[in-house]
């Protein structure tokens, strides 16, 4: 959480984890969480296939979002992207 916060607000320094709320997080970060959650989703059946489409769609959304920000078509706050 601290790391994600630092990524969203790079100039504000260290945060406590409790200060972060989901609605304050950047949509990109939320999508990254979504990807990781879908990949790590537990299932009692070891042969269960993961939700590939959810992960691919999340990746696609991130790409579109970043693309819109970088090309200036979005009104959202542009944060520093590594």
């Amino acid at each position: 959480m601290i790391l994600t916060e630092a990524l969203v607000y790079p100039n504000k320094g260290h945060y406590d984890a409790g200060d972060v709320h989901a609605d304050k997080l950047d949509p990109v970060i939320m999508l990254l969480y979504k990807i990781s959650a879908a990949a790590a989703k537990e299932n009692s059946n070891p042969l269960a296939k993961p939700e590939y489409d959810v992960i691919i769609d999340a990746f696609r959304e991130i790409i579109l979002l970043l693309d819109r920000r970088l090309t200036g078509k979005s009104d959202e706050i542009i944060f520093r992207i590594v």
Partner: protein
Amino acid sequence: MVCFSPSYLSYMRISHSFFLVTVGLASILIDPMERTLLGVNSQAELEIEIDKRVTDTILNPSHRVHSQPSWYKWSTLTQEYIPKCLIDESYKGNEKVLVHLSENPIHRAGPTGVFSINEMPDTVIKYHLYCKSDLDYLDAIVLESFFMEKLARAGICPRVHYYSDYMQRIPHHPLIPQLLVGKVKRRKCRRSHQPANIRFMIMDKVGISVGSWARYHNPTFINVMRAGAQMIVLLKKLHSWNVLHGDAHWGNFAFKSGKTGDLVLLDFGRSRIINEAVDYAANGGKIQRFCKNVDNLHIFNSKWEMKSCNPAFRDDVYRAVQIAQWQFTALDSESIYSQWLKRHPHKRNIKK
């Protein structure tokens, strides 16, 4: 360019050798059919032409996109002609790499051997000594060091992936590099310095791995995301064939060429066909054992990974998705360096 089918090429090879053996005047007599087809006038020209065509067939990927012959057909096809295609500087621009393997494989039990050359992350040879079932007739693969040096000098990423039995069952897909292994049996030639039996392996030449790219080439975040999406697409395709990769970390995804373009999946050493009829859950869900994850920078750890108890298809995807986590957490070069130092087999105990 004329595209030859494997059956025709094998026919040419047989008829050609038949002429050489039975007729002493091979330089004068040429099979009229071959001469007509190939448009040559002398035996020397014919040999050159056949070599050229076979080399083209093997090395040109466009020939194998539409009709990919089976493993054994390729092996038969290349038996005669492969020794002539020794890896050389002139093969620098080709799509395939021919690698000679040593004649006498080492028979030894033990863990997976890892050799590094020049301490570069991509110049690593792996061979699995106790994986006898996978290494069917090649008990172990040992690459000769001078060929590795040649590969490195030619600017080719010499990452070697040993032959796995399961590779035969995987349908051809342009995103999965082909790996051909064979054994050449021929009489020892006095003028040649090559041994009588040559073990060889042909690999697709691929670009750098995604792991190296992300660590050392400073990619943008959006490009990392693009790579991540492609990795999942690739795994989805592989899993649709019920093939479990088993080691799908981002070091095993590489660019098809250079640092851009499509990704390919490498290293099928731990891959296996998952049989849906088998009740894996009865064994606690353990299909194979992985090393415990010791990466402290991971922010998402699920229970099954901490227990080293991996479910099948989820583990592939989970490991592939860790590319996002790396970008997420290790943002400065110092932490990347410390991470590298921690994992290095010889330098990890060195204090700063």
